[in-house]
C-alpha cells in the first residue's frame, strides 16, 4: 500500500508536538501538557465534524453518531474502521482499534524489559515511563473525538488506554 507524504509529515508533526509540550514547554507538568495537547485535538475535531457531517442527514441519537465515528470518520482519518465497539447502553462506549496508526511505529525499549530479571526495583519505573510516554501520544486523538462529539451537541469525556501495542481503546463517557 502506498504511503502518502502527508501521512508521514503528520506522524512526525504529532511526535514533535508531544515531545515539545512534554519536554520543553511544560517540563515537569505532564497534566498541563496533556490538557494543552487535548485542547488542540478538540479544535481539530470541532472543525473536522463540520466537514465530514456535511453530506449526511442529521443523527437521530447518540448511538448513530458513535457508529458514524467508528465507520466513516475513522475511515476518513486513518483509512480503516474501528475494529470493536462495546457499550453498556448507559452512555459509555469503548472503541477499540487493533492497529492504531499513530502508535504503529512505536516500541518499548527491550533493554528496559531485560533489566526486569536483573533488578526488580528499577524496571517498574522504566516500564511505567514508557507507557506514560506512549499515553501522551493518545491525548490528541482523544481531543479529536471530544471535539467532534461536542460540535454535534453531545458532551462527553474521552480517555484512552493502550492494551498491547499497537492496540488501543478509546472510552467515551457521555454526560447525561
Amino acid at each position, binding site marked *: 500500500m502506498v504511503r502518502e507524504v502527508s501521512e508521514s509529515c503528520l506522524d512526525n508533526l504529532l511526535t514533535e508536538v508531544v515531545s515539545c509540550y512534554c519536554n520543553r514547554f511544560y517540563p515537569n507538568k505532564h497534566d498541563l501538557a496533556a490538557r494543552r495537547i487535548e485542547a488542540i485535538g478538540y479544535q481539530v475535531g470541532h472543525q473536522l465534524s*463540520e466537514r465530514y*457531517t*456535511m453530506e449526511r*442527514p*442529521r443523527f437521530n441519537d447518540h448511538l448513530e453518531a458513535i457508529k458514524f465515528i467508528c465507520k466513516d470518520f475513522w475511515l476518513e482519518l486513518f483509512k480503516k474502521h474501528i475494529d470493536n465497539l462495546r457499550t453498556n447502553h448507559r452512555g459509555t462506549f469503548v472503541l477499540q482499534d487493533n492497529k492504531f496508526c499513530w502508535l504503529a511505529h512505536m516500541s518499548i525499549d527491550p533493554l528496559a524489559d531485560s533489566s526486569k530479571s536483573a533488578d526488580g526495583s528499577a524496571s517498574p519505573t522504566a516500564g511505567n515511563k514508557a507507557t506514560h510516554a506512549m499515553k501522551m501520544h493518545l491525548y490528541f486523538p482523544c481531543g479529536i473525538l471530544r471535539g467532534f462529539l461536542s*460540535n*454535534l*451537541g453531545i458532551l462527553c469525556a474521552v480517555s484512552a488506554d493502550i492494551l498491547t501495542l499497537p492496540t488501543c481503546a478509546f472510552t467515551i463517557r457521555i454526560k447525561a
Partner: protein
Amino acid sequence: MIVCVAVVGHQNNPLYIQSFTEADDALKLHHIVHCSLDVVDERVNNPKKTGPLLNETFLGLLYPIENFKVYGYLTNTKVKFILVTTDLDVKDADVRNFFRRFHAAYVDAVSNPFHVPGKKITSRTFAERVSTIVKSFGLSSAV
C-alpha cells in the same frame, strides 16, 4: 432575487447576516431572520408527516411573509442557514443547490484556524463566495 442570507449558531447567536438589497431595510430583514428561528425549532421538534423527513438537513419553505419567502436548512452541528428571497417561482432544486454550495463555503470558513467557534465569521473570502453563489442563484433556471 435573494435579499438576505444568514448563518445562525446552535445557541441562536448570529454568525453571519448579509443583505443584498440597496434599500435600507436591514433591520426588517434581521427581524424576519429572527422570527424564522422559531419556525425552524418547531419544524425540527414536531415533524409534519407530509413534510421533509425528521433528520433531513433541508427544511424547505418555512413561512411566507409580506412579499418574501423564507427557506431554512439545519446542519448536523445545529447551525441554521436562513434564506430570504422575493422570487415568486422558486424551484425546490434551486434552493437545495444553493444551500449545498452555501454549506460548502461555510465549512471552509469554519476550518480557518483563526476563526473562533461561536464568534461571527469575518472572512472576506467567505463573503465573496457567498455573493457569487447568491448572484448565480436562479440563473441556471433561466437557461
